[in-house]
């Protein structure tokens, strides 16, 4: 029963280094093709354009670690953007208060998902599919389909479009959330319980860990982060519309799975997710510099996702293949 020297760490470690290698390779290739690709400006472009997807991917990582999924974060981003606009323009709240209330709404929406999943023990896929169309529907209903929120104060737009101390203004928010989620997943008992729930929900309950409370935490957290992403999205665009964040949940899931996190739960890291987001962001940005059409970016992302999946189970296939070959070779009893 010999296993790789330190199995758990090695498998994980290897997926990330290879992904890092792919990201670096991408970067160098696009730098050779597009002259301005390597410039500092462009690197900030890449960062600014991937903040929302990055936040949603960060929100999704703990959820997928527990073996769950959340299809509603994209629609929730749209709903929060609308509510943020309404709080500010119609209710007349100052920006920071409006943002805080939006994050509150995000937490409530996450709470709705959490309660259906934990109280009624419903599969997360179906609950979040229901809230996916409910949140989008509410966003369209609140704005009666027409209303959009614009001409936000310059100070707020600064957050989305300008530089602060040389880096994009929204970068600090993203970095803070990234570090927060990284610490939560890798350095706290909560993160440890997320993995345990992902590997064996029953076993975790027998170990005296409150499984329902932990699951509620990850979904409420996802709701709040989606709200933060909505505020940053509105600042970057200067406008809040009902169709904000359309399809963002699929980009987020792609980034998380590309980063080596298993959709079945348990295995996965936050740095892997960040690398996944980087890989997709560089690809999309680089292809514009390489003057390739948008569709190529979509196709390559799909292909990358399938290869990342295949590589995550390649060792298993080779192991079973080797085992089958070995038993057929020698029928003699295996000495203990």
């Amino acid at each position, binding site marked *: 029963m010999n296993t790789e020297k330190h199995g758990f760490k090695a498998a994980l470690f290897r997926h990330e280094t290879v992904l890092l290698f792919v990201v670096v390779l991408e970067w160098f290739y696009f730098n050779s093709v597009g002259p301005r690709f390597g410039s500092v400006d462009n690197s900030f472009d890449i960062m600014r354009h991937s903040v929302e997807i990055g936040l949603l991917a960060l929100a999704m990582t703990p959820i997928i670690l527990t073996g769950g*999924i959340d299809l509603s974060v994209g629609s929730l981003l749209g709903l929060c953007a609308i509510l943020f606009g309404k709080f500010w323009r119609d209710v007349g709240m100052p920006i920071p208060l409006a943002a805080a209330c939006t994050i509150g709404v995000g937490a409530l929406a996450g709470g709705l998902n959490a309660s*259906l999943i934990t109280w*009624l*023990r*419903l*599969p997360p*896929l*179906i*609950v979040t*599919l*229901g*809230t*996916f*169309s*409910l*949140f*989008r*529907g*509410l966003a*369209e*209903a609140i*704005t*009666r*389909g027409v209303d959009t929120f614009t001409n936000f104060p310059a100070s707020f737009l600064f957050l989305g479009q300008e530089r602060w101390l040389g880096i994009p203004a929204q970068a600090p928010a993203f970095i803070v959330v990234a570090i927060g989620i990284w610490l939560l997943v890798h350095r706290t008992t909560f993160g440890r319980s997320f993995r345990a729930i992902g590997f064996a929900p029953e076993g975790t309950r027998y170990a005296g860990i409150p499984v329902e409370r932990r699951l509620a935490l990850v979904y409420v957290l996802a709701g709040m982060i989606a709200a933060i992403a909505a505020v940053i999205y509105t600042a970057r665009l200067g406008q809040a519309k*009902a169709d904000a964040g359309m399809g963002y949940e*699929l980009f987020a*899931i*792609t980034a998380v*799975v590309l980063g080596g996190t298993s*959709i*079945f739960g348990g295995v996965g890291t936050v740095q892997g997710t960040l690398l996944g987001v980087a890989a997709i962001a560089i690809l999309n940005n680089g292809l514009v510099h390489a003057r390739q*059409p*948008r*569709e*190529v*970016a*979509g*196709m390559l*992302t*799909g*292909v990358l*996702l*399938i290869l990342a*999946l*295949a590589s995550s*189970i390649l060792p298993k*296939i080779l192991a079973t293949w080797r085992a089958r070959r070995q038993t057929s070779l020698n029928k003699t009893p295996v000495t203990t």
Partner: protein
Amino acid sequence: MKRHFRELSVAAALLLVLLALAVLAPAFYQPQPLLSLLTREAPTLVVACGMALVIICRQIDISVGSQFAVCSVAAGLLAANGWPLPLVSLASVVFGLIMGAFNGWLVAGLRLPSIVVTLATMVTWREALRWLRQGQFVNLPDGTQWLGLSQLAGQCMLIVTAVVLLVALALATKHLAAGRFVYAVGTDAEAARLAGIRPQLTTFSVFAFMGALVGLAAMMNVVQSPQVDPKSGSGLELKVIAAAVVGGVAVSGGRGKLWGVFVGLLLLACISPALTHLRIEAYWEKAIQGAIILLAVVADGVRNRKETV
């Protein structure tokens, strides 16, 4: 009676909506618009039947929208190049079959999670089609629409095809062993293996069959109009999954009836025209659909919780 409780409750809801419409907006019941509503929903019903089987087998396929678009454009191009219609229909089904089989190989062969595999194939196929066609409409030769028949005959043919397929599949899932194997694998794949059923082969065939049905549905869509819009099929996967869930198919596999899916689809499909008739603003449609799905999901949750506890 009890075993059909879930499907009958959806049928009751549909009846309620239709009655409300009869009272509030009798204009809804003119034959002509109803006929064209059913004709347009016929391809969706065919895809919904396939999706029901996929979900009963405890899997999911969100790439059907892209498959639908690829098959529609392919069929349109073949028809435009003068291929005879029967051959075009066969080609469309084969295209679907190939794409479905590819999904099936990844999910059943390599044991990859179906949600992520079909996410990847959805994005890849959709973007590849856009890259090749750039959104160009495909103009069809004259004889294609309604297969050269009159409009009425064409519409009836499509509706009959869809209903016949629904009945055939409902019978197959009831009386054909292969149909029952899908339920067995969906409810407990390991027990199925011990009983001599081959779970991987069943899962693979469910995905391949899904592709074939999408190919057929694409053809049924192409013959409805003189040109093919490459963006057709966008949002199809959510529509059919919602129809299956509202129709009582359990995502945990092993449970669900095709006629329930039919009723679920009708319920969701008649929201938009109903809103128009009841003079309710268009932007309420998505919210109402979301509410119906959540209601169905919560109802299932409460019912299961009462049974198990």
